[in-house]
């Protein structure tokens, strides 16, 4: 079985700043990987490279066997068009720190937007699925509410449902609970926990070390654009080997 994501020597620069100094990782199908590390360590940038919101400057990423951003033609690599990149992005669902729900659409409208207008599925079927998804994240009665009238936790749960509606093979979470009031974190983590138990492949950039310990199959600690330590939650979060990992965990827990 080929891994869901393979990253080889991924380098990303923003001007003179190198955000990723050469990341190599493989994530198996059904695996839940949590990426932890201090802010500015490149966790989010790596996640954004996987669904091509950022283009890696060097190295390569494969998602379910497809090379991101290029098509191989014999001995040459052809850069993909806007349209083809858009199609590749359908393999992964993305959940953002700031939710990014479409402000002019209701909860239901947000969820069916992609299925109807990108995947061209029939509106009736998409609506029925969207209602089932809203039910799954516990928001069936909020289907006609606009994002501005939902709490942060509710918005994030709608955002997860919106990503799932595209039937992705892989879910990417970019600090999904960092913008939430503390009492709303639990409801979002519960939805993510259920999703992990359903067998979805997930990459979660998070500061929730408790969640990582409980749900992750593997934890990666990143710092200054590189993977410092990788292993089971027990190894990385409880018995970290590297001093930088130890410092980070001590700082988060204090």
């Amino acid at each position, binding site marked *: 079985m080929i891994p869901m994501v393979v990253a080889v020597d991924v380098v990303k620069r923003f001007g003179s700043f190198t955000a990723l100094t050469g990341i190599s990782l493989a994530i198996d199908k059904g695996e839940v990987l949590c990426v932890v590390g201090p802010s500015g360590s490149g966790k989010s940038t790596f996640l954004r490279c996987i*669904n091509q*919101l950022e283009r890696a400057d060097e190295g390569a990423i494969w998602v379910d066997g497809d090379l991101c951003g290029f098509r191989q033609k014999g001995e040459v690599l052809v850069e993909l068009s*806007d*349209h083809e990149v*858009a*199609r590749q*992005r*359908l393999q*992964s*669902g*993305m959940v*953002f720190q*700031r939710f*990014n*729900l*479409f*402000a*002019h*659409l*209701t909860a239901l409208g947000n969820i069916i*937007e*992609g299925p109807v*207008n*990108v*995947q061209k599925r029939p509106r009736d079927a998409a609506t029925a699925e969207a209602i089932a998804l809203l039910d799954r994240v516990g928001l069936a*009665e*909020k*289907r*006609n*509410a*606009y*994002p*501005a*009238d939902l709490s942060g936790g509710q918005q994030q749960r709608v*955002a997860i449902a*919106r*990503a799932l509606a*595209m039937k992705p093979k892989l879910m990417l979470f970019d600090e999904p609970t960092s913008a939430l009031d503390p009492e709303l974190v639990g409801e979002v983590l519960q939805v993510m926990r259920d999703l992990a138990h359903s067998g979805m492949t997930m990459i979660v950039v998070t500061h929730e070390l408790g969640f990582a310990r409980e749900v992750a199959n593997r934890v990666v600690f990143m710092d200054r654009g590189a993977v410092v330590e990788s292993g089971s939650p027990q190894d990385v979060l409880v018995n970290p080997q590297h001093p930088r990992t130890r410092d980070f965990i001590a700082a988060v827990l204090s």
Partner: protein
Amino acid sequence: MADRPATRLDPPNAYSIAHLKLVRRVFYGRWVAAILILAAFAFVVHAFANGQIAWKVVGQFFAAKAILAGLGNTIIMTLCAMALGIALGVLFAVMAMSPNQVLYAVAQFYIWFFRGTPLLLQLLLWFNLALIFPTMGIPGLFEARTVDLISPFVATLLGLGINQGAYTAEVVRAGILSVDSGQTEAAKAIGMTRLTQLRRIVLPQAMRVIIPPVGNEVISMVKLTSVASVIQYSEILRNAQTIYYANARVMELLIVAAIWYLVVVTVLSIGQHFLERHFARGQRGNPANRETAEARA
């Protein structure tokens, strides 16, 4: 400070004001201003009522055939020129935000040129295009004399529409910039191409910012069509002039035209109000989010 005594009212009723008579403050200034303005207004009304205005003539020409035809032309020109202006505005706004340097430069030149020269001059340029291009056409397909092609209607449409596009481009650009970049990222993440992102996510949200200034411009377009009278486009003001050249009822016909302009602008303002309400859906605290209230109940 530490041993401050607790406040005690003694006796308690010494602080009661319930039995006192209340004298409200009088706003003398407001009364004076209101009286002065009403007096001035009465003077103006009186002057017009006794002036040499034949109000009967106003009534007589209000729904005259030539006036209504001119009104129709004014409305048609407003709609066509505005449609062209908005289409060009969106196109050039997107070009002005393009990473392609050539598209960017062309958009900047367009905005610079058409905002930088008077509308009247542009109308005359279009109307007299035949002086520099006697014939126009696509080689091999069709060819026509420019004088036949550029009628007063076409010249006015090009002049007003293209000029409007330069202003609308900046309004649309501001609207697009007002939409949070997270919206585009979320649209990308669900696999939207650039055009779909613009059409489905960015422009509908930009409309909230775009509509008030564009509504303003539609209203000024209604009145700008009168400039086209110089190139023989028979809009309402030109038709009113044609009539008063014949019957010398200058003021009466100008009043007829003024009333019609006010009617059109009033109708448009009401339309703008409903359009703004439509595009404000999803805004925090918007009472129009009726379904939201239902969902809460």
